[in-house]
Structures are given as structure tokens and as C-alpha cells.
């Protein structure tokens, strides 16, 4: 190194130029300062910001997942409840429908039986009336015929015999 101090000393012995070294140190510090100021700090800031963004995203994703899981669980619970409620209501409706059906059937059956009984009673009554009327007509007819036959065939001797028989009958009744 031609720039080394010609005097002795440590720097001279190793060929160091103190000014040059200081200049280089100053340069280095300036470069370091400039780099730190213009590159490292913004880069670090950007990295930190990205990390925070990623972490926030991850947190939001986790929260969303948890929320979704909760929503899914809630939905499942609601569905289960709704299904159970629907089943319960369906069973209740079925039971009510069965009861109603049974009641309607029973009522209809009772009404049908009552109508049947009434019809039977009415038919029996009509039959009885018809039979009674027929019997009375037949009886009247028989008596009329007997009266006419007796009137046409009754002789004086017959009347005498009838009178005697009637008297005997009356005496027997008195006795």
C-alpha cells in the first residue's frame, strides 16, 4: 500500500491508512444508516404487517370455523328439535285423528244402530197394526158370515133348541 504512513507505528507496520479506514467506516455507517432507514425498517414493517394480517386472517378463519361449527351444531340441534317436535306433533295429530275417527265411527255406529232399531220398531208396529187390522177384518167377516148362515138356516125348532141350551148354560153359570 502506497498510501500507508511512512512513519512507524502499528498502522505503518501493517500498511493501514487510518484516514481511509475511518472514511470506509464512515461510509459503512452511512450505508448502514441509509439501508436501515430505507430498506430494513420498511421491510421489517411490511413483514410485521403481513404477519399481523396473516395472524388476523388465521384468527378470523378460526373464529369463522368455530362460528360455523357452532352454527352447524345449532342448526343440527334446531333440526333435531324440529324433527322431535314434528314427530311429537305428528304423533299427537295421529292420536287425535285416531280418537276423532273412533268417535266418529262410534257415533255413526250408534246412529246406525238407533236408526236400525227405530226402523225395526216401526216395521214391527206397522206389521202389528196390519195383522191386528187383518185379524179384526177376518173376525168381523167370520162373524158376519156366521150371522148370515144362522139367519138363513135358523128354524123354529133350532131357535127352541138354542133357547133351551142358553137357559141350561145360564143355570150352569149360576150354579
Amino acid at each position, binding site marked *: 500500500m502506497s498510501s500507508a504512513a511512512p512513519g512507524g507505528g502499528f498502522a505503518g507496520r501493517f500498511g493501514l491508512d487510518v484516514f481511509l479506514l475511518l472514511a470506509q467506516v464512515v461510509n459503512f455507517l452511512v450505508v448502514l444508516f441509509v439501508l436501515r432507514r430505507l430498506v430494513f425498517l420498511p421491510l421489517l414493517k411490511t413483514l410485521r404487517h403481513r404477519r399481523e394480517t396473516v395472524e388476523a386472517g388465521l384468527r378470523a378463519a378460526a373464529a369463522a370455523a368455530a362460528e360455523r361449527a357452532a352454527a352447524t351444531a345449532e342448526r343440527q340441534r334446531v333440526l333435531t328439535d324440529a324433527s322431535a317436535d314434528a314427530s311429537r306433533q305428528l304423533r299427537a295429530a295421529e292420536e287425535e285423528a285416531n280418537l276423532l275417527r273412533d268417535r266418529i265411527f262410534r257415533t255413526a255406529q250408534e246412529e246406525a244402530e238407533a236408526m236400525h232399531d227405530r226402523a225395526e220398531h216401526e216395521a214391527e208396529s206397522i206389521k*202389528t197394526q196390519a*195383522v*191386528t187390522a187383518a*185379524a*179384526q177384518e*177376518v*173376525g*168381523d167377516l*167370520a*162373524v158376519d158370515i*156366521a*150371522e148370515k148362515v*144362522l*139367519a138363513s138356516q*135358523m128354524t*123354529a125348532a*133350532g*131357535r*127352541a133348541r*138354542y*133357547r*133351551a141350551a*142358553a*137357559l141350561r*148354560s*145360564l*143355570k150352569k153359570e*149360576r150354579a
Partner: protein
Amino acid sequence: MRARRLSYRAIARAFAEVLSDVPVVRRPAALRACARFLERRGLLHRAPAVLALLDEELLQRTGRQRASVVTAEELTPRAGEPIERFLRRLVGVPVSLRETVNAQVRAGFQADVGDLFVDASLLGQLQRLRASLRRAHPSNVAE
């Protein structure tokens, strides 16, 4: 006292006195005299009423009871005698029959004596038979 003022019952009592005093054989003549009496007094048209009262009076005097008998034909004395006997036993006193003929009776007789009514006629028997058939229950008839 004029007969016109007498009541029919008084006239009937007088006739009864007359008839009970005369013998049986002279009773037709006595009845004719009674009829002439009524004619003279202008009461012949009331003879049925007087005779009815006379009948009552005679029955009362003899202790007999009137029995109205309805038959299909006129009864001979022989035919009426058993009826009279039966009715006498029935009411406990002698009875005098008053006969009425009604062909509707057909046969037998109907007697009305005091409070009793005896129906031994064919008409009554047929009426009872008719009533019995009318009362008959259908279940007994239908079989």
C-alpha cells in the same frame, strides 16, 4: 068429583081395585068396562099410559116384578115358562114377562128385570165373539 080431574095413577088404582075384586073369568068384561069408562071420559087416547100404570099397580099388589123379554119370535106359554122360572130364581120374586119380538135377536132371548140384564141371545153371543176377536192380541192371531 069428575074423572077428568083424576090423575092417571088414581084411575089405574081404581081399575086395579075393580080387577082384583072380580073373578078371573069376568076380568075381560071388567077390562072392557074400564075401556068404556075411559072412552066416556075422553081419555081413550091415554089408555096406554093408564094401562102401564095399571100394570105397575097390579104388580105391586101381587108382589111381582116386571121382566122385559126380547125374543126372535113370539113365545108360546110353554116356551115362556122356563124363562119366567129362571128369572124368578134369579131375582128371588115372581116375575111377569113382557115380551117383545125382535128378529135381530136371531135366537135365544134378552131379559131386563130390575137392575139385571140377561143376554142369552144369538145376537149377543155373536157380538161377544166379535168383540173377543177384536180384542185378540195379534201374536195369538198371527201364528
